[in-house]
């Protein structure tokens, strides 16, 4: 279980708290939504859960252990803007194979074309690059996936296509998924339950 207990976050000691006392958990195989208006700190919470930020109070545990400090993180975060989440000086093949080698069926389900591998990130569209970022994050050691507005900038068809592939993969590998979004119909469609950040923060 991915569990956050009594998390509080502020940017500096003399700054006000962004939120306090946030607790939530995601079971393996569960798809949970996280909603809330923009500017509330949803992305910050997502970054903490995936181990990107270390200056917070409270605890994040994964199967009752703290997140690993180095090596592959079992909690993987997918960012809203894929063009900012890949190294612009690496070809797509380097980006895609950095953590693991995704199998053919996953690439096919996501619609990642082999013709993209030799290109540079700026030569792919946002939707194409996001598919690469998703394939990169779904390594064999990934146990939890945090999708931070993963498909907000994509057209409806690409959105449905990516989610179908991700949910299929999550089901087969018993992954827990946290869907961060302000799109209510999308959360209703994907999630077993939805947490409102406004309701759980102080």
């Amino acid at each position, binding site marked *: 279980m991915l569990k956050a207990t009594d998390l509080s976050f502020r940017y500096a000691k003399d700054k006000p708290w962004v939120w306090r006392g946030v607790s939530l958990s995601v079971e393996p195989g569960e798809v949970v939504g996280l909603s809330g*208006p*923009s500017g509330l700190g949803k992305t910050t919470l997502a970054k903490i859960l995936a181990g990107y930020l270390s200056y917070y109070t409270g605890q994040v545990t994964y199967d009752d252990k703290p997140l690993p400090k180095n090596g592959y993180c079992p909690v993987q975060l997918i960012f809203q803007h894929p063009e900012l989440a890949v190294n612009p000086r690496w070809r797509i093949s380097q980006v895609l194979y950095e953590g693991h080698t995704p199998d053919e069926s996953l690439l096919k389900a996501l*619609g990642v074309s082999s013709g993209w591998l030799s290109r540079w990130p700026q030569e792919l569209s946002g939707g194409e690059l996001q598919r690469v970022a998703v394939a990169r994050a779904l390594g064999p050691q990934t146990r939890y996936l945090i999708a931070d507005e993963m498909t907000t900038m994509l057209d*409806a068809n690409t*959105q*449905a296509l990516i*989610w179908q592939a991700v949910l299929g993969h999550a089901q087969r590998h018993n992954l827990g998924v946290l869907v961060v979004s302000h799109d209510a119909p999308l959360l209703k*469609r994907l999630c077993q339950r939805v947490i409102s950040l406004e309701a759980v923060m102080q």
Partner: protein
Amino acid sequence: MLVVRNLAVSFTQYEVGLKQRQLTVITQLDLEADAGEVVAVVGASGSGKSLLAHALLGILPPNAQVSGELVFKGQHLDPARIESLRGREIALIPQSVSYLDPLQRVGPQVQRAAQLSGAKPPAAKILQQQAFARYDLKARVGRLFPFQVSGGMARRVLLATATVGQAELIVADEPTPGLHPTVVVETLKHLRELADEGKAVILITHDIEAALQIADRVAVFYAGTTVEVAAAKDFDDPEGTNLRHPYTKALWQALPQNKFRPLAGTQPPPDNLPSGCLFADRCPLVIPECEAGRPILRSVRAGLVRCIRA
């Protein structure tokens, strides 16, 4: 007010050494926009939505070639005429807030836009203040630099810049992503008001749901062609029974509030376009005739569609 007929845009690229090739990214775009009307342009990324905006404003990169017909208020739009009209009669609300000048305070930027459209400096100052009031920007915001204003405020500054002059055609390129839902509603409402004042508004977006809130008509782009132009009211049931093109139906059905059912595959890449219908490889209704040639845009049930099966 605006008629776009058979627009094509291609880029000259270097392949190996000095060998060049032509990459056609827009093949057949058609669009009309009249005064008092909001026309939404929807489609996947890479379908040519932004390139249309850039062609209308004459800000395509230098290696682009444009063919086809652009007519604005009954007169042909050539590069010289575009240059004299843009910012005055045709204004762009750009996609990215990075279009603001990072080294100039936002108030003077809006004022400069007013001056470029013909106002003398004192009048331009008043126009800028009116535009700020209209978009709920406080006077002190005018003294801030772009990096000091929030994303939503920067969007409103861009709206003010585009509408401070007397532009009659407003092209809004994805003006809403990343904004708070209430700000999205506000922005869309402002665009509707501009149309109601007698301007023509082209709203380019990938968010059909947002577009339908204010649009009169919706043009659907696929792989650089206009596949359908439908009235907003045709998007009424989850199946999309009143829509004409199978791609429009698929796009509509893929919304989470409808069927959330995606269509497999991707748009054909511009360097490998099929000779027949561009949608044939993904189409559930495909027949051999579809691959014989490109279908023409024809009138079906008070809308336009580029499909022989519609």
